[in-house]
């Protein structure tokens, strides 16, 4: 069992948790992920690592309450224990040989972009960051990104905070103004990553995207997370999750990620029952 040592609501739908997992904390690196299970009946859910404290032996995760498992996790409190927490899985973000980078984060994907930005900054790499949100109410981690960047550009879709527009608008401006990047790292919803890759392609800037396909074991066994990159089948859990954004087949990834969507909608009712039961158990 793994203890939740800290919980913080970042906005109405996004939660940060620090989990006691000393072995994982010792090895975790930016770009890697963990798999958690709330209890014995839960599914295995991958989440990218949002931070770690090697001395305290804790790993932080930031998640949006979208499905059953993330909602159940969101109902747990400080001092509670979750059943399983395994990692660090996947390959870390590569920093070697880079001098200037731009990190692009979208929505809750910013949570995952932050440790990578920090890793770049710590490695002495000049780091620009563009983060985008739908509106002011869901902006997260602004101060943290200020610390982890040389230039921070905050965008909102409706202009209610920061600059008005999508992250790709800002990226386009920067590239057109002559900004030279060795690499652009994009982390966020699939359409956003796809359009970031499209934006950088004419400029010939290497673009890495962090993919989140469906996974079961996360250790290179089930093959559920296969993605097509440059016409080749790759497994996100062991070959990724970072891949060359100019080579990823995003359309296929989007389709594959929707395999269980209908079933999810159908069984939402029973899920709510189970969440209610869990809540009652926790109160007891």
């Amino acid at each position, binding site marked *: 069992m793994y203890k939740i040592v800290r919980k913080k609501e970042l906005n109405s739908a996004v939660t940060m948790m620090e989990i006691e997992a000393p072995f994982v904390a010792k090895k975790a690196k930016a770009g890697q992920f963990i798999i958690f299970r709330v209890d014995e009946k839960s599914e295995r859910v991958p989440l990218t690592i949002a931070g770690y404290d090697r001395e305290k032996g804790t790993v932080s995760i930031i998640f949006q309450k979208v499905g059953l498992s993330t909602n159940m996790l969101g109902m747990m409190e400080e001092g509670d224990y979750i059943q399983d927490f395994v990692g660090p899985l996947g390959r870390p973000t590569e920093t070697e040989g880079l001098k200037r980078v731009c990190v692009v984060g979208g929505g809750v994907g910013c949570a995952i972009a932050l440790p990578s930005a920090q890793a770049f900054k710590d490695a002495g790499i000049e780091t620009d960051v563009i983060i985008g949100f739908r509106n002011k109410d869901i902006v997260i981690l602004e101060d943290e990104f200020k610390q982890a960047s040389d230039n921070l550009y905050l965008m909102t879709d409706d202009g209610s905070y920061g600059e008005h527009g999508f992250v790709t608008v800002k990226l386009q401006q920067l590239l057109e103004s002559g900004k030279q990047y060795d690499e652009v790292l994009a982390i966020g919803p699939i359409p956003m990553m796809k359009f970031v890759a499209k934006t950088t392609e004419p400029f010939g800037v290497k673009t890495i995207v962090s993919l989140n396909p469906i996974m079961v074991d996360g*250790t290179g066994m089930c093959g559920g997370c296969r993605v097509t990159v440059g016409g080749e089948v790759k497994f996100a859990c062991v070959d990724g999750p970072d891949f060359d954004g100019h080579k990823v087949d995003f359309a296929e990834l989007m*389709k594959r990620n929707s395999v269980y969507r209908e079933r*999810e909608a159908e069984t939402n009712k029973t899920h709510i029952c189970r969440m209610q039961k869990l809540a009652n158990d926790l109160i007891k």
Partner: protein
Amino acid sequence: MAKFNMDPKKCPMPEQEPAVRARNFLEVAQGYTDEMAINEAKRCLNCKKAPCVEGCPVNVRIPEFIAKVAEGDFMAAYEIITSTNALPALSGRVCPQESQCEARCSRGVKGEPVAIGRLERFVADWYMKNVNKMPEKKESNGIKVAVVGSGPAGLTCASDLAEKGYAVTVFEALHTAGGVLVYGIPEFRLPKAIVANEVDKLAAKGVEVMTNMVIGKVLTIDELFEMGYKAVFVGSGAGLPMFMKIEGEALKGVFSANEYLTRTNLMKAYLEESDTPIIQSKAVAVVGGGNVAMDSARCAIRLGAEHVYIVYRRGEAEMPARAEEVHHAKEEGIEFKTLCNPTKIIGDENGRVVGIECIRMELGEPDASGRRRPIEVPGSEFVLDVDTVIMALGTNPNPLIRSTTPGLETNRKGGLIVDENEMTTRDGVFAGGDAVTGAATVILAMGAGKKGAAAIDAYLKK
């Protein structure tokens, strides 16, 4: 009662009716009663040469234990079996006896061989039901040994090392110990309570089992040595599933058998209470002819599919699956499309599988494996209407350990290279099971785990 039973046929084992069992996940074969076991044991001629023993990868003293069963002394039989085989309840259920011990049985010359596997299972089940004494903790010699993986190779190796007094830690990547015995082999063929009981026995012997530990990621092999482990056994098992590289394999509804079985067995997606989703299929094509293909097909029918096809490019005689699994699958209504090979998977506008195109095959000259090579019959393509395709084609060994352990050499297929003592190219690092051989059987992995334990003992005594 007569001393020998000269019936040319094996005593049949009670089974759930096919129509009933094809809708539940309870064990298919229900095991012998005491009387049935004694009666079957009397079919053994107790041959002096005991060819059956040579056919067993862990050399179970077969005629000796069967003689005890015939006498009704099941406890003595259990002790004889477990002197060489730590996991009889497992091997009795999942071994391909027809190509091992039973293939060499003298009774098999005229009639059916003695039902060695069923008797082994009977003895193990009898013990579990009537005695199930947890083993005692051996006096520790204080020497730490790490075992990576808790599948059949790792469990056997850890058990043998613990018997010899070593302080063993088993590192398991998943959240439950047992490896393929829990994520791969379904409940109806190997109840998970049996695997859990074996893991409990290991713990009683003083073995520490740590789950959620992905070696190669959370700790490297080198770090295990730094932590004071004096030797490491790698039994990390099967790896990434193979696909055919045909059109349509990325469609929704195409799964590797590993994924389909893991969802069903490890995550228990067949139970209402499990949160892990599994596809609701109407018609399923399973590609492959091994045990994993049979397990996938039989899970699919139990999960409610109306039609389940086995698509296999060779003939039924060439199928690597256990004869009993093929027999059971047929009884349960699985439709066999042998001498057929998929050419592409067909999808609709939403990217969902709607069919699989196959081509008929015929058998030519024997190939490197000694089996007759299948050759396509031109123009014989046809389409099976299915909404799900499961690829059960085997696996490539897991890359996590070899890619993080300097000096560990692998063969062309990615399997760890070992010498005759199961030692890898790294001093003190031993390996066995699928991590070495690629996809093979439970009993071969158990044999390798046993050999590995003996080799580690010899290595540490040097």
